[in-house]
């Protein structure tokens, strides 16, 4: 039998398979190297990078919730310059695409980070995280309003020539105007969802369980919400959509392909089962073979509506 074709395209980017690992859950790409070759992945999205190194939020930064977890890492990272100097050379050795997730406190900061990365060999695309609070607008999310979403993406677009992915937040009333805004701003693809706002309280100390009070919810708990957003997104844009949220196994991933995702990202599942992304690739292959599809493109967006 002919080998199943798992390649998929995200804007100008051609992935050998549609399974990526999500930003913030895979460090700078090498933490799981002992368990399998990260080069087997469709792509690696590294931890969100900012212009300057960030210490991040006070601990505790994670708390488990039913079938999910809240995190308030606060985008702790080594900064883009250190990343380029120390980590990127190691990542270039891997036989897969490295995608940098970036964020800034202002659109100028986003632009500067993008500029630095644009000059680097070994970075195939940027994923712009506009799902984090911004300082200028009083802590609101850039990605929560079309205007600010457009502002960030277009300022990055001006300086960055390769594939540009806008990562969107589910904490909005309606995702379509946001998608329209980033599309007009020059995004070639969108990825969603980032985490949902959440909190947990310790009834013994009577304090929030997270050091910073609130956090972002991820994991299997949010999968139905993520799937809905991806379904909506696919139907409101022609841009390729990357599905994220609560994916732990091949069945989950296939649900996202059915509603139209061109690729998926595995996040929290890496913590539970580090080999999940590899098992998902194998599971997708097996599903396609079983259903006699030679190409994942036959699966993508093949949902039968009711």
């Amino acid at each position, binding site marked *: 039998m002919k080998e199943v074709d798992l390649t998929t395209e995200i804007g100008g980017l051609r992935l050998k398979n549609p399974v990526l690992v999500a930003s913030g*859950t895979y*460090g700078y790409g090498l933490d799981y190297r002992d368990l399998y070759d990260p080069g087997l992945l469709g792509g690696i999205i590294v*931890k969100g990078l900012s212009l300057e190194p960030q210490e991040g939020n006070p*601990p505790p930064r*994670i708390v*488990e919730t039913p079938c999910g*977890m809240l995190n308030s890492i606060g985008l702790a990272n080594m900064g883009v310059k250190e990343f380029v100097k120390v980590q990127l050379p190691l990542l270039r050795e891997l036989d897969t695409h490295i995608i940098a997730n970036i964020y800034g406190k202002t659109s100028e900061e986003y632009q500067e980070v993008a500029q630095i990365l644009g000059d680097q060999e070994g970075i195939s695309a940027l994923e712009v995280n506009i799902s984090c609070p911004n300082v200028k607008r009083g802590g609101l999310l850039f990605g929560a309003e079309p205007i600010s979403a457009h502002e960030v993406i277009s300022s990055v677009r001006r300086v960055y020539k390769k594939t540009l992915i806008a990562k969107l937040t589910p904490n909005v009333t309606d995702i379509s105007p946001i998608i329209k805004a980033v599309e007009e701003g020059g995004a070639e693809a969108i990825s969603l969802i980032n985490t949902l706002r959440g909190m947990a309280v310790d009834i013994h100390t009577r304090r929030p369980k997270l050091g910073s009070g609130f956090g972002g919810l991820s994991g299997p708990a949010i999968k139905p919400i993520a799937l809905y957003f991806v379904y909506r997104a696919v139907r409101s844009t022609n841009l390729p959509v990357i599905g994220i949220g609560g994916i732990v196994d091949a069945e989950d991933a296939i649900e996202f392909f059915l509603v139209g995702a061109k690729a998926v990202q595995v996040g929290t599942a890496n913590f539970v*089962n*580090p080999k999940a992304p590899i098992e998902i690739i194998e599971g997708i292959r097996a599903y396609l073979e079983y259903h006699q599809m030679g190409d994942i493109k036959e699966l993508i967006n093949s949902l039968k509506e009711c």
Partner: protein
Amino acid sequence: MKDQVGVVLSNREVSRDLFLLRLRVPYQMRESRPGQFVMLKVGTSHDPLLRRPFSLFKVREREVEILYKVVGKATSMMRDLRDGDTVSLMGPLGNGFQPWGEGETPLLVAGGIGLAGLGLLEEMLPEEGFLVAGFRTRDEAPLELIRKRNSIITSEDGSLGIKGTVIDGIEMLLREVGKTKFSLFACGSRGMLKAVSLFARSHSTNCQLLLESYMACGVGACQGCVILTHSGYKRVCRDGPVFSSDQIVW
């Protein structure tokens, strides 16, 4: 580091709410160093979701022992494990203890379940090494697991050994053995570790602490498990779990 499936050989209560879990694993874990840990997952349910960190209490060839206390969801599920059941364990993880220096006498200090983190180190103790183990009451002490020689046991209510905390135990030891250059290795609650740190500082004694924290990944990928040190936030899982006591900001 490996991710392997362990088969339960035995799982029994050794003192109140404290259990000893013996596992057979496919790959040997001889390379494990004292102070290292594994991330353990029981069952396939997503609730509880995350793996939990547990120190390697004993390791021999393809056998691993974990000493754990039942405190919540995951550890309650562990209590229900029976012979032949399987668990998933990833490890060994973390940096482990540094050996004691030339001319130093190792002194292990365990607060309650803190004993679990010192198991591998205890096996390497020389004849003249010491252990101080503190408990709240007698029924919390897994006496069968505590070395017979050179051990001092304390209990807060006086129901076992010396009445008091591990600090009282250490002070008694100092009085008894006189002028010895100790190197401290401590594991236990945050409050107890802080007290041991202060003691170490005031006695200019080397002191290593095995710290705890909530973990998600256990391998350094998520930045979730940090604690504050004098050189900023450090990941307990990757930069620790063992830290020199003078690094910690209390």
